[in-house]
């Protein structure tokens, strides 16, 4: 539940950063596992990769790349906020980070289909 004191852009940016970070952290072991299949079993890696043609998986992939992109731009925004001279435009920057993430992951998605 979004409590009233939270309903504002910068809190959402925080939540998004946390969710994406968490999502990536959960996905990462799976990703590593898959890649290491190359070591033991290239064939099944291929069969996994073939799965990628499945539209559902494509959407999931899009989600993943979106998470990475959103976390990436959001993270850069945070580091800029913390280390560069202060900018009063945090809300715009947060929105910009999300937009950039959509752009990147959208591009990725369009390339993939």
């Amino acid at each position, binding site marked *: 539940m979004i409590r009233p004191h939270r309903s504002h852009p910068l809190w959402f940016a925080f939540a998004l950063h946390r969710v994406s970070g968490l999502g990536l952290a959960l996905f990462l072991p799976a990703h590593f596992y898959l890649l290491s299949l*190359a070591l*033991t079993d290239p064939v099944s890696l291929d069969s996994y990769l073939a799965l990628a043609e499945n539209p559902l998986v494509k959407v999931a992939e899009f989600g993943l790349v979106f998470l990475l992109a959103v976390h990436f731009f959001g993270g850069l925004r945070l580091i800029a906020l913390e280390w560069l001279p202060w900018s009063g435009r945090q809300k715009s920057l947060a929105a910009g980070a999300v937009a950039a993430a959509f752009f990147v992951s959208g591009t990725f998605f369009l390339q993939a289909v």
Partner: protein
Amino acid sequence: MLDMRLYMLQRITALIMAPLTLGHIAVMIYAIQDGLTAAEILGRTQGSLAWFLFYGLFVVAVSIHAAIGLRVILHETLGVKGAALRLFTWGVGLVLLAMGGRAVWAVTVL
């Protein structure tokens, strides 16, 4: 809970990963255009010291970064602290490092 040291580690690893991620996404966008196969991936990466360093660095950074990140989330949402929290952080970091290391080994060295 998060002191100066952990904070700096998390920020520095983030900054290390930033260009690497960008590179990775760019390669993926390029690579995915005509479908992915294991051979293709391996063909690009295997035996390449550059790719080894690229992904190796990424794995080290991401292990530290994610371990600290999950530590914060665990503490703030479940209130875990002290030795248990330290154990968790190290555990996550080492597991990621091991799994990531194996993957990098698989795609670049063998």
